[in-house]
């Protein structure tokens, strides 16, 4: 940067700002006039009004007649649920496929390549609808449910998972288990005799699992009773299709990121580590992966953000997430187009900003310190 902006340019930028403000004001006044013509005033007071629609799938109790604000909360939770499941599945699948791409086995390498090419070059929406209409809706009915490992049932009404029934000690045992898991990353860095505790802190995980298991009374397996499945937790087919579509699509992109990141670590690093006498496993865990991780974090962050945004495609299969309800039923009933769009964009924007702030913080932590 050798040139300083001229005084004229400095003055002109305020003109630009004035123009932007003028356009915004103009649009606002037109919108006010339009809504005035329709006898509606802009405002979010309607969020306290009772609703008159049902939300077929929810994580928290919901009844017709609850307020719009509660409907918003139900939908945000549904969106977050779909996004969270997809992010976890996409990361694991992406890691697997990315490593498969680097396999020495020709067959494995090329199957991964075929998967990536097929998935990356077809629209996500087509994939989600395909999973829903062409796969899940052609599954057999409850009587001919497909039995998957661990007592999981799959049929046209969705995926039935075994549920866990807590006994009365659970309230005492589960919070400490969760706390142990949460403090684990911090214990990792606590110095002890001059070195961080490190991988020894992984011992906390089995302890947490044991505490968790001790709080379980029994598991409730889904089973056919009469014409339907009883017991267990039902995952509606819409959610299964949405998560399958989102995670299979993103996994292909994550696989390419993982592959590129591992390849980006210079060959000399590996050779130097080997010549120092490190074992191949140590080379992978102490030399290659930490360096690959640094390269991976920013592009994977944008994949996570994409998954969150794309969860709005649940509308195509009528999964009751934010877009489906607030650009659909809720908007129709309340007649609040502008408020609905502001709510929708606002919620997605805030979720994205929070996730990207977290990932930026994580990125700074793992980033190479340049001295």
């Amino acid at each position, binding site marked *: *940067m*050798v*040139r*300083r*902006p001229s005084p004229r*340019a*400095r003055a002109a*930028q*305020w003109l*630009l*700002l004035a123009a932007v403000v003028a356009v915004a004001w103009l*649009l606002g006044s*037109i*919108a006010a*006039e*339009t*809504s005035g*013509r329709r006898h509606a005033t802009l405002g979010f007071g309607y969020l306290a009004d009772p609703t008159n629609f049902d939300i077929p799938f929810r994580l928290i109790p919901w009844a017709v007649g609850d307020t719009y604000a509660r409907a918003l909360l139900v939908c945000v939770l549904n969106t977050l649920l779909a996004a969270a499941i997809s992010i976890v599945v996409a990361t694991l699948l992406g890691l697997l496929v990315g490593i498969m791409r680097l*396999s*020495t*086995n*020709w*067959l*494995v390498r090329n*199957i991964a390549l075929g998967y990536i*090419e*097929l998935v*990356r*070059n*077809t*629209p*996500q*929406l*087509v*994939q989600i*609808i*395909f999973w829903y*209409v*062409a796969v899940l*809706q052609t599954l057999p009915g409850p009587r001919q449910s497909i039995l998957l490992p661990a007592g999981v049932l799959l049929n046209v009404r969705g995926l039935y998972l075994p549920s866990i029934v807590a006994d009365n000690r659970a309230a005492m045992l589960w919070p400490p288990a969760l706390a142990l898991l949460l403090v684990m990353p911090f214990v990792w860095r606590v110095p002890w005799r001059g070195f961080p505790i490190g991988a020894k802190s992984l011992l906390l995980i089995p302890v947490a699992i044991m505490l968790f298991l001790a709080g379980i009374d029994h598991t409730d397996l889904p089973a056919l009773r009469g014409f339907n499945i009883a017991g267990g937790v039902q995952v509606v087919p819409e959610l299964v299709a949405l998560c399958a579509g989102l995670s299979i699509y993103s996994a292909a992109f994550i696989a390419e990121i993982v592959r590129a990141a591992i390849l980006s670590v210079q060959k000399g690093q590996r050779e130097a580590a080997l010549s120092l006498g490190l074992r191949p496993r140590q080379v992978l865990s102490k030399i290659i992966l930490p360096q690959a991780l640094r390269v991976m974090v920013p592009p994977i962050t944008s994949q996570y*953000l994409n998954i969150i*945004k*794309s*969860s*709005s*495609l649940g*509308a*195509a299969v009528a999964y009751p997430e934010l*877009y489906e309800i607030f*650009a659909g039923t809720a*908007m129709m009933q309340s007649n609040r*187009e*502008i408020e609905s*769009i502001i709510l*929708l*964009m606002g919620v*997605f*924007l805030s979720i*994205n*900003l929070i996730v990207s702030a977290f990932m930026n913080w994580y990125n700074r932590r793992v980033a190479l310190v340049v001295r």
Partner: protein
Amino acid sequence: MSDAVAGQRLPTRGDLMTPRAVDWVRRNLFSSIFNSILTIVVMALAALIVPPLFRWAVTHATISGTTRAACTGDGACWTFIRMRFPRFFYGNYPTDQYWRADVAFALLVALCAPVLRDGTRHRWMWVLLLLVVFPALAAVLLWGGVFGLSYVDTSLWGGLMLDIIASFVTVAGSLPLGILLAFGRRSQLPVVRMLSVGYIELWRGVPLLTVLFMSAVVLPLFLPAGVSADRLLRAMAALVLFNAAYMAEVVRGGLQGVPSGQEEAADSLGLRWWHVQAFVVLPQALRIVVPGIINTVVDLFKDITLVTIIGLFDLLGTVEQALKDPAWLGFATEGYVFSAMVFFVCCSALSAYGRSMERRLAKGQ
């Protein structure tokens, strides 16, 4: 003579003992115990999955006949696709006017070739033709209403044609806007920088679907009374605004990739800021970002299927429309597989071009 000997590969043990194919299989499929197990497992899975799939799609499938009665086998019913084929490409465009869409498409291909090819002379002229003259010509051809061409409303446009039109308009509109925003984001003027950052981050933070929803439902409320724009135009305007934010980030990457010495040298020659950017920095930056732009175009082309949700009939929309036809109920799988394949062919071709471009650029450096 020693050179000739040195150039030859010494025969390995594999060459002496086994034919080349066996050697290849041994090295690539059975190099270790783990690899052998992997190969066998994968082959077993493939044996389970591939034959039924092949039976469904090819050997037991039907493509002849004109009604669903022809589809008696348990395989795919491609007859459905064949009977609906023109609809998938032209939507509800009048059958006797298909030639107009064909001519527009041929023009597009003819103009894209010199723009994308290597070593075209006067490339800027071709770019201008493509971005300024072609849209006007195509609009006249597709819309009609002048020069004796009958008027075709945009509500009749559909199928793959609509995907291509919307992608072209979006790219042509969002690239210039994106370039401006990229400069804005790098500007030293705080107001310009903040406005650009705000614009880019706002659009990149919201799902495309909400933007399309805005175009379909909310945008009409912001138009003065008496002014109306049809659904397709509104959707394309929203796509331009949305995609410009992504283009801006791609172009910004390119601007950062131009060595600062270039700008300093041009500065020291006494060029004005605009001239430095337009004649020195931007041409070099755009050259770097062509693969990135092509990636954005591939993403955009796939994402345009979202217009189906706001009630426009692109390829996916026409397929869904056809699936609701009472005469052809129950062929959803065929319909979605077909549309996926069409998109796959288009996007693979585009990304393959992008990759070859990337390789050429890498070689040049």
